[in-house]
């Protein structure tokens, strides 16, 4: 026996075999002081507790389940307690039906209850099945002024909720910061923005840069450009993160370099009319958005978490851009009349950026990488 078990241990190329471990799905809704809900418990689990297969033939029938309804209700309710602001709520099983889940048929227990008051703080105590199977999990979905969820386990048998607290806040913030960081750490995007923004406080007159007169107009122009760029890359960023859009990275990066080159050159020799600039920014934004592929790590997260992360990241990127613009623009605006701004910053700056972009473009087209320069 010992050897056999040892041998079994050695079958370690263990693929995930059948089913997952035991779960129950507990849905609760709090409206005022009333509780409603439904608790789905696997028939296999109930059978281990109260013997549902009454005739022992290996088949649990609907008739057998109904005949054990009282025991089922009693066993279930022994493992669940809800309290509102520290005082117990009553809970009862209103009806028993069947429901199918991925790993078998469950008993669907309709819950009804009442709390002494409309709660500000709700507490769920869960102790179902853990004594028999510590790998059991209670998957709680609570509607209590918004949707919350919790996974109840032997080491987390209690879940507490305050009215109005946010579930996904921290995740959102994390990805928001990631987004901001991407603008500031990603040389490409930052330089592209700089290229677009530097001349925004100027305007062309006879082929020459001249200080813009109206601060308001400059501000509006900048806003239009940044908005167009933002909208566009939010679209493609989302598409790429959801893997609806897949483009070879090499060409995308080359295209990004090309957009920077164009933007830089445009600062030196007008290629794009100012009115058209937001459309161009939109087009370039589409390209830049694809470049963010892989940041969110694919769909490694549950859908709702992923949505929050995506939203956070998008907003973070935009936040980063707005921050960049907010820092640069007032400075640029205040020195726009200075000759050294036009000839010392905008022009040489654009030349420098243009050269870098050209270098990137050639490297990426030729599929080369220089350490530290790509």
């Amino acid at each position, binding site marked *: 026996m010992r050897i056999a078990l040892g041998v079994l241990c050695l079958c370690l190329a263990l693929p995930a075999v059948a089913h997952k471990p035991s779960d129950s799905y507990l849905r609760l809704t709090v409206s005022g002081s009333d509780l409603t809900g439904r608790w789905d418990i696997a028939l296999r689990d109930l059978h281990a507790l109260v013997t549902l297969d009454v005739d022992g033939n290996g088949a649990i029938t609907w008739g057998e389940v109904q005949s054990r309804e009282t025991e089922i209700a009693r066993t279930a309710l022994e493992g669940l307690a809800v309290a509102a602001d520290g005082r117990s709520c009553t809970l009862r099983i209103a009806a028993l039906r069947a429901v199918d889940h991925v790993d078998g048929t469950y008993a669907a227990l309709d819950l009804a209850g009442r709390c002494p008051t409309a709660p500000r703080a709700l507490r769920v105590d869960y102790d179902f099945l853990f004594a028999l199977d510590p790998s059991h999990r209670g*998957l709680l979905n609570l509607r209590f002024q918004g949707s919350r969820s919790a996974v109840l386990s032997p080491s987390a048998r209690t879940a507490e909720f305050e009215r109005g607290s946010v579930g996904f806040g921290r995740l959102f913030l994390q990805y928001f910061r990631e987004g901001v960081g991407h603008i500031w750490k990603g040389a490409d995007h930052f330089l592209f923005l700089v290229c677009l923004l530097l001349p925004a406080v100027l305007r062309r007159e006879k082929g020459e840069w001249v200080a813009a007169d109206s601060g308001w107009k400059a501000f509006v122009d900048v806003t239009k450009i940044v908005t167009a760029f933002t909208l566009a890359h939010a679209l493609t960023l989302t598409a790429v993160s959801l893997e609806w859009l897949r483009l070879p990275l090499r060409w995308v990066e080359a295209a990004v370099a090309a957009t920077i080159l164009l933007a830089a050159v445009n600062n030196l020799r007008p290629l794009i009319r100012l009115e058209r600039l937001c459309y161009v920014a939109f087009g370039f934004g589409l390209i830049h958005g694809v470049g963010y592929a892989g940041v969110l790590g694919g769909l490694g997260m549950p859908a709702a978490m992923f949505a929050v992360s995506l*939203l956070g990241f998008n907003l973070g990127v935009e936040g980063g851009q707005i921050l960049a613009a907010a820092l640069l623009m007032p400075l640029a605006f205040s020195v726009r009349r200075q000759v050294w701004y036009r000839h010392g910053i905008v022009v040489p700056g654009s030349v420098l950026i243009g050269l870098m972009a050209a270098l990137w473009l050639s490297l990426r087209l030729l599929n080369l990488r220089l350490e530290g320069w790509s």
Partner: protein
Amino acid sequence: MKWSGTVIGAVLAACAVTLHADEPYRPDSDEAVLERVRPASDPEAAALRRMRARLRERPEDQRLAVAYARQALELARATGDPRYTGYAEAALSPWRGLAEPPVEVRVVRATIAQRRHDFQRALVDLNAVLERRPHHAQARLTRAAIHTVQARYDAAVRDCSGLVSRTDALVVAACIAQPASLSGRAEQALDSLAAAFASRRQASPEIRRWAWVTRAEIAARLGRAAEARSAFEQAVDTVGGDDVYTELAYADFLLAQGESSRVLERLGDRTAVDGALLRLAIAEKRLARAGVEGMHERLASHREELQARFQAVERRGDPGHRRERAMFELHVRQRPGSALWFARANWRTQKEPIDARLLLEAAIAAERPDAAQPVLDWIAANGVEDGGLHALARRASGDRADSK
């Protein structure tokens, strides 16, 4: 301005909710069968219930608890139902808080941890047991297995060698063969395995089956398809009923050989088992691509089924199943980005050839050849002999050199 992200987010969130809104129903007839369980007459299930009842009266009885846990683990292995592993864990709860539980309790606890791929925890127990009882055969075997999975091949071989003359010679040979074959001694491993087979014709069916699978896998890595095939055939024909793990290992081989129809034949009615459903779906995808009739519909329903199962596991918060998830994302859903994420996470805990192949394929498909570096390092550092892996590795380094 930011509506795109918000809209997508709202849609996704709505999907997440509706996906789990299965509708309850009242069956039409009392005779309707809702679920199948082991009948009361089933000896193993009956034994388990008896033991559980006795254990309830005397929960601190160590021998009883260990016997019950072992029985539960055997059922877990045979049925593939992880609930039984949970039952085994419950039996050990009187000793949960102890710093120094009894030896047998620790060994069972380590087995449970290993089943759940919590290798670090398993090693803590096994190291402690082997320090006090260096000749505990099962502890050595289990630790050797963990060392092999985590690519500590010399340590694995040392542990296996410690079993010589304490267990069946075939067990020792198979134990050593696996890590040896991954650290540059594949030929010798096959030879000694063949010799052990010849000399131990009376070994138990489980041992023989497992030794055949080991031989088959090593031969496959060395490119000896015919030898691998015949070894797999021997394994599945071994007396003792069918063994799900053997079937899956054989299926992986058949898929690598491009024999998708055979996979369909062998696994067609095993859809209850996640791993089997996955290989089935991969085979169906290939056949669909080759234009075989009717595959698209089968594939579509299996893909949905697998998706639902993976999501159910995710909801629990279990980190497991990363290897299978990566295979699913790569070969069935064709999402290299996601596949790469899971493959990398998987590689952090386990480093078997199948995991290496997965990471290489995902990195190549996702055009992130730099992500394949850990596998390239593993191959180089250990002298892994596997033609298929070498070819993939060349592609990955080639892609990398291209972008340098």
